[in-house]
């Protein structure tokens, strides 16, 4: 069952994407770094194969590599976070 590590990694990826969207102006982020953060999530064994969480993370990774807007990637990652919440009894 997905746990805290998965939540933290997805939140980290979301924070990176939001930083790009908000233009904080204090760090230059590349799509490679965002993709790496999403891959870190996918590497977690606790995220089951075939689960919605993995599906949304895969879509977010595709969105980054396709050059989709940051808001689109963020939306997909929020969906992964939501699916993670649905797959366990408590956050």
């Amino acid at each position, binding site marked *: 069952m997905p746990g805290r590590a998965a939540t933290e990694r997805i939140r980290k990826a979301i924070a990176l994407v939001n930083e790009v*969207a908000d*233009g*904080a102006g204090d*760090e230059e982020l590349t799509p490679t770094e965002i993709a790496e953060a999403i891959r870190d999530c996918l590497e977690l064994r606790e995220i089951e194969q075939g689960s919605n969480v993995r599906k949304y993370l895969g879509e977010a990774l595709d969105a980054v590599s396709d050059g989709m807007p940051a808001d689109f990637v*963020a939306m997909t990652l929020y969906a992964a976070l939501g699916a993670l919440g649905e797959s366990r009894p408590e956050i």
Partner: protein
Amino acid sequence: MKSAEGRGRTLDEAVDAALIELGESRRNVDVRVISEGPEETVVEVTVIDQTAAEAGTAAPPNGKADVARTLVEGLLKHMGVRAQVTVRTGTDPMTLDISGRDLGALIGWRGETLRALQSVTNVMLGRHLAEGERVIVDVERYRQRREHTVREIALRAARQVKMTGDAITLDAMQAFERRAIHLALQDDPDVGSSSIGEEPDRRVVVGPRKPADS
């Protein structure tokens, strides 16, 4: 717009003095620091133009704003949330204000739900927006209040840095909050800000400005 000058030994005291004169609460005002010294701080407190914000729907016809407002109203309806959506006038980027009762759930943990709603709104509005253009979604002026709070934190930290000469590391903040701090201190000749660490624990460091920085 109504405004008043406030004086006090600290920033908080000066703001409170102006608020008492205006008969307003903190959430409805914008604060500008006029002068700061070891013995007295002077601020100008301006009431945010609530009537203009509330009359957002009566603003000059703006196709994009109407589409955005209708879209967010629809989303809220699907979510089962009863709230009013208005377009804040005179803001760039365009800001949609959601107001109503018991909207805490719409803000979520550290503003996460609000942030997600903003992402969805921007994706759905995509074809109506120019490249790089974005829409900000705010609930009960949460975002505006957070920006105001972190600006106050920045000014307080800057005063302390000036007194002690030591740098201060602030708590981890979101990108828009860090941005507000950098903007608040960008014109200060003595104190500067930079960010350290990695998301989501990225923090702002407020410290003495080096000669090369200015």
